[in-house]
C-alpha cells in the first residue's frame, strides 16, 4: 500500500485509535492493530514503542500488568446470523472446492488411463498378432502333417485300408415279435389313483 503524502500518518493513527476505543475489535480484527497490542503486552512497556505523534485522545488504557491483552479482549459471539446470500456463497465455495478437487483428480486419472490404455492396446495388439500367427501356423502344420502321412506312408503297412463297402457291418433287424395282447387289461386294482394336491 502506498501511503499518499496528503494523508499524514497521525490522522490515520488517530482514526485507528478512536475505532479501537469505540469498537471492541471483534468483527473485523485488523492485523496491524492486533499486532501492536500484542507487542505491547510482550514488552510490558507500551508507551515507549508508540511513536511520538501518536496522541491518544482517550485516557491511556488501564494498566495491563499481570494479564495479556488477548485474554482481556475476548471475541464476542456474533449473534447476528449471516445474510442468506453470504451463507449461500460460502456453501457454493465449499462445494466448488470439492468439485474442483474431484475434477482435477479425475483429470489426472483420465490422463493417466489414456496414456496407459494406449500402451495396453499396443501390447495387446501385438499379442493378438502373435496369437493369430500361431493359429495359422498350427493349422497349416497339422494339415501338412495329415497330408504327409496320407501320402508318404504305405497305409497297408500298418494294416490300414481305405474305408470301403467291405468294412460295413450290417446287423439285420430282428424279426417282428407279436405285440402282447392289451385288450383285456383293465385298470390295475392295486394301482393308487394319484391326485395331485396342488390342483
Amino acid at each position, binding site marked *: 500500500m502506498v501511503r499518499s503524502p496528503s494523508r499524514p500518518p497521525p490522522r490515520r493513527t488517530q482514526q485507528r485509535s478512536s475505532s479501537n476505543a469505540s469498537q471492541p475489535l471483534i468483527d473485523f480484527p485488523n492485523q496491524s492493530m492486533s499486532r501492536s497490542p500484542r507487542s505491547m503486552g510482550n514488552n510490558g512497556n507500551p508507551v515507549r514503542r508508540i511513536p511520538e505523534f501518536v496522541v491518544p485522545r482517550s485516557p491511556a488504557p488501564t494498566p495491563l500488568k499481570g494479564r495479556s491483552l488477548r485474554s482481556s479482549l475476548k471475541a464476542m459471539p456474533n449473534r447476528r446470523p449471516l445474510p442468506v446470500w453470504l451463507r449461500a456463497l460460502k456453501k457454493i465455495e465449499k462445494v466448488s472446492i470439492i468439485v474442483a478437487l474431484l475434477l482435477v483428480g479425475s483429470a489426472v486419472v483420465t490422463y493417466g488411463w489414456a496414456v496407459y490404455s494406449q500402451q495396453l492396446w499396443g501390447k495387446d495388439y501385438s499379442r*493378438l*498378432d502373435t496369437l493369430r500367427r500361431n493359429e*495359422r501356423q498350427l493349422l497349416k502344420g497339422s494339415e501338412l502333417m*495329415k*497330408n504327409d502321412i*496320407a501320402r508318404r506312408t504305405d497305409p497297408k503297412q500298418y494294416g490300414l485300408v*481305405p474305408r470301403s*463297402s467291405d468294412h*460295413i457291418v450290417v446287423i439285420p433287424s430282428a424279426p417282428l415279435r407279436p405285440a402282447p395282447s392289451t385288450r383285456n387289461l383293465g385298470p390295475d386294482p392295486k394301482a393308487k389313483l394319484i391326485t395331485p394336491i396342488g390342483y
Partner: protein
Amino acid sequence: MVRPYPSRQRSSHQRSLARQIAALPEAKPTLSRLRIVWIMLLASGGLLGLNLLRLQVFQAADLVTRAKQQQTTLLKPFTPRRPVVDRNGNAIAMDEQVYTVFVHPRYFDKKSNQEVANLLAPLVNQNSAELQKKFDGNRTGIRLIDQLEENTAQRIKDLLIDGIDFIPSSRRVYPQQDLLANITGYVDLEQKSQGGIETTYEHLLKPREKSVRLNKTGGGSILPEGVPNGFVRQDDQHLQLTIDSRMQRAVQEIVDRQVSTFGAKRGLVIVMDSQDGSILSMVNSPRFDPNEYWNVKDFAVLKNWGLTDLYEPGSTFKPINVAIALEAGTVQLGDYFNDSGTIVVGGWPISNSDNAARGSLSLTDVMRYSSNVGMVRIAQTMKPSVYYSWLERIGLVQFTDVDLPFEAQGYLKPRQTYITSPIEVATTAFGQGFSITPIQLAKLHAMLANGGKMVTPHVVKGLYDSQGRTFWEPRQSMPKQIFSPKNTKAILRMMEAVVDSGTGKAAQVPGFRVAGKTGTAQKAAEGGGGYSDSRFITSFVGIFPVDNPRYVVLSVLDEPQGQAYGGTTAAPIVSEVIKVVAGIEQLPPSKPDP
C-alpha cells in the same frame, strides 16, 4: 543479494583493478551506436522472418510430409484370404504371411558384414561366405530372400540387426497339394486367382483390405487413438466345399492306377450326389500342385477338363434317349425293337459295335447289349423336331451352371439340320454327332437317379463361421422336373441289367445294386472329317444303389491304349469308386425289389 566483501579481505590487486576501471573513459551512447544496434536487431529479426517464410511457405509441404512420415504409421493388419475347407472341415486352402527381405549393409552399424552374414546364413539357407560377398558388394537394397515364412522372419527380427527390411505379403497354401487342385484352382504370387473356386468365389474369399493411419510415439509404439471400431476384428468365416477329401484321396489313387494301367492320356472321375447336385469327388489325372504352379510343364493339366472339354458321350447317352422316348410317349416299356445288325440311315450304314444282329430286343436288352441299331429305331419313333426339342429341354446346349469357371457349352447341330437330315437323329441316338462335357453327362444321369429332376452340380456348400453359423449358401432354384419318376425307375432297372449281365459287368459291387452304362466313343480324327479308328474315349456311368438311387459315378478315360472299351477300362474304376463311396457314406447293402 550479493554480500560485499568485507573491506579487510579485499586484496590489493582487486583494489587496483577497481581503480583501473574507474579510470576508463565512460561509454557514451552515440547516435551511430544506436543505429548499429538497431540495424542489427532489425536484420536479425528480418532473417528470422525470412526463415519463418522459408519453413512455413516454401518448405511447408515437404516438411509436413516428412513429419507425417515420422509421426504416423500405416497400420495394415494381415487380412488373410478366407480359408477353404472340405465337407469334413479339413483345410484345403489357407493364407499365410510371407516376407520379402531386403538388406542394407550400410545400416548394420555395430555389426560387421561378416557377423551379419554368419547370423543370417542358417536362417535363409544360404552360404555365409556368399552372403558376405553380397553384403560387401552393395551398400543398400540387397534382395535377400523372397517368400520367407513368418517364423523365420520373426527369428531374424529377434536378432535385432539394423538395416533389414521386411516387406510383408500373402501366400496361398494348399496343404493337400495336388489333391484338389482342379477344384480350388490357385492364387498366383500377385494375389490373382487362377481358376477353380478361387475364381468363382473371389467375392467371398477375398478379404477387404483394411488399413488405418495412426500416430506413433517417439519410441515407435502405436497410439490406438483413431482406430475405427471393429478394425482389429477378423471374421472366422470359411468356404466349405461339398467335396470329401478322404473320398477324393481314395478315388485319386484308383484313377491314377487305372490311367497308368491302360496307358490313357488322362482320366477323370466325378462322384455326384443326385439329390442336390453336390459333387463329392472330382478327380483328374494327371494333376498339378497349386503350391508350385510354376513348375507345371504341360499347361493342359491346369484345366479341369471335366467341365472345360467337350467330348462325344457315346453309349452313355443311350439311357437318356430311352428316357426321352418314354417321356415323349412314342415308346412303351413293353415294346420290342428289331436289331438287324446294320441299319442304313440317309445313305449311311450304322452297325452295332460288335457287329452282332440280335433280332427282337426289349428296351432292357437294347441297353444291355448297347445296341446301336435298336437305339436308332427308338429315336426314329419320334419326330426329329420333337426329339430336338427334348434335347434342348434337357439342357444339352446350355451350361450346367456348375460353380467352377471356364465351363464349356454343349454343342448340338442346328435344329434345321436335325429336321432335314435323318442321320443326325440316328447318330445322336447312340451318343455321337454332338458333344457335351463330362459334368453335363453326370448332370443328365443325376436326373435318372433322382426321379427326373434337373439339379445344378456344385462344389461349394456355403460360407460358415467357426460356430457353424451360415453366412451364405448357394441359392438352389426349385429343380425342374424333366422325366417322370416312373420312367426313371424303369430305366434304372434297365441299366442294372447292363451291370448284371451286359456290357458293364466289371462295375459290379458285391452287396450293392449298381445301374450303369458303358460308353466308347471314337474321337474326332485329327485334321477334321470323320472319326479316328485308334483313339477312343471310354467312359462308364454308374448309379447306385438302385433300390434307393442317389449317387452318380462317372469315369472317363481319354485314349486308353489297345482295344479299350468302356466296359473294360472305365467300369472297373466305377466299381472301385462305388466301394469307396459306399464305405465313406456308410450305405447299407442294397435290397432286392419287392
